[in-house]
């Protein structure tokens, strides 16, 4: 398995090049690029600038593990407003377009957002139809859409079987799950999600989670690897069982307050321990 971490972890004061250098130095193999999440990668970034971005990544000795976006929360494909849905198709479509330019075959989307206003049944239908439409474009570009399980934040597809049914309804070889093992909280067990989805897993986000505490306002329940309540030996065993050999991508929500670069080294070392089984 290969290790990656998001470019949204790079502090603005460092700049992209220095950030990429740090990622490489910390022992990562790749970087996850977040469309809309950094100054260097926006919807308005041209193809030429995207190619230049790849050049910088490769110059640092890294690969692009996948293309994610931060825009789905404000512009979900499940919105009632057709104009907002159009914007969602726009930025996800852009992810699909740039993925081959960045030499990766996977994108991440947060598909569907249940709110007080837009209820589950509406969200389900629009999301299935929207992802089906995008799947055609993804297929042509030879890109896989990984729908992330943001269980609590999305208030959608809370259980692994529910997610499995969703993927069945989408029914496309170009759509799978971008599994985040930290997002399951106390609603289940990451290792069971891995077993159920197996070959449909496009990429894996790694973080730990403090279970049984819920979300308390803006307080994060996510924490560094091995500090939370995930059962990491079980997660590793499940990954082996389903023969997952793809990218593991660190997604740290809580940041170090001091010595910010240390978080890259600590995370990389923890991922090494997970991969090698020294738990």
């Amino acid at each position, binding site marked *: 398995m290969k290790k990656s971490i998001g470019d949204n972890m790079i502090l603005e004061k460092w700049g992209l090049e220095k950030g990429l250098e740090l990622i490489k130095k910390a022992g990562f193999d790749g970087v996850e690029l977040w469309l809309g999440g950094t100054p260097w990668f926006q919807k308005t970034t041209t193809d030429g600038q995207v190619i230049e971005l790849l050049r910088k990544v490769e110059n640092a000795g890294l690969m692009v593990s996948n293309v994610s976006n931060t825009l789905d929360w404000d512009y979900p494909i499940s919105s*009632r*407003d*057709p*104009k907002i849905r159009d914007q969602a198709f726009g930025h996800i479509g852009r992810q699909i377009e740039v993925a081959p330019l960045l030499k990766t075959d996977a994108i991440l989307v947060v598909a569907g957002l249940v709110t*007080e*206003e*837009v*209820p589950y049944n*509406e969200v389900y*239908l629009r999301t299935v139809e929207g992802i089906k439409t995008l799947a055609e474009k993804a297929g042509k570009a030879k890109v896989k859409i990984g729908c992330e399980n943001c269980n609590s934040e999305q208030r959608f597809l809370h259980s692994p079987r529910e997610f499995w049914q969703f993927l069945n309804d989408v029914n496309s070889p170009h759509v799978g799950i971008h599994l985040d093992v930290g997002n399951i909280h106390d609603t289940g067990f990451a290792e069971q999600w891995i077993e159920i989805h197996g070959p449909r897993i496009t990429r894996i986000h790694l973080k730990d989670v403090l279970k049984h505490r819920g979300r308390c306002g803006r307080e994060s329940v996510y924490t560094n690897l091995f500090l939370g309540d995930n059962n990491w030996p079980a997660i590793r065993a499940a990954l082996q069982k389903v023969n997952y050999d793809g990218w593991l991508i660190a997604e740290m929500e809580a940041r170090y307050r001091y010595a910010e670069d240390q978080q890259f080294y600590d995370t990389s070392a923890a991922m090494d321990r997970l991969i090698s089984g020294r738990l």
Partner: protein
Amino acid sequence: MEMTRRQLLAVATSAALLSVEPRIQFDRRKSLGWDCLILDLKEHCSLAESLQGYEGCLANLGLNFVTRSHEFLPDVLPQARHVVIPAVTSIDAELARRLLNFLENQGSVLLELGLAFVDPTICDLQRKLLSSHFQVEAQSPVSLRSGCDGEQCVPYVDYLWPLATKVRDFSRVVPLSASSSKAIAHSRGITIGLSRKVGKGTLTILGSPLGPVLRAGDQEAQSWLHAFLSATRA
């Protein structure tokens, strides 16, 4: 709310039918006629899913319906009892004339406004047309969510006629008013459904889209539509 004996029977029958057997059979006006014509206004329908919602619901109810676009109206209109126009954003004078003629001859029109999702300039123009053609005053769209929080945010439209029921709102609604009409739906004190007699027929206008809610499988919305079609059939 006053209700005629006929309307009461229609509502009671539809509720009973929906609970035991969703497929019902309406009498045919003509042997080749349709119970319901869904008018697809294409680019002037702001929510395609609304149209799908009506189609799905009418199919579930076992009604004889057809979906046609504007240009086929002269041929199909005389054969229909009801006309449903989902998520309307634009009605021109020609279409208004045809609908008024249909209403004069005992037809029923359900006009669902889709103005809450269009540019304000289009909305303003259409509000004037609604007023001049149908004597219905439509206000600028409002968000039912603005200014309410927590427990005050009850997400339902209260339908009063022909079936008293609660259906999920669709966030942005068009407030309505008209003289010599009855309010049939409201939410947070805003009238968003009206019905009025036009000639021998009935014109019903909804300021909160019902089609997307039908599409999502809302049982109360389906019951309301069934009761509406029963109560207004010629």
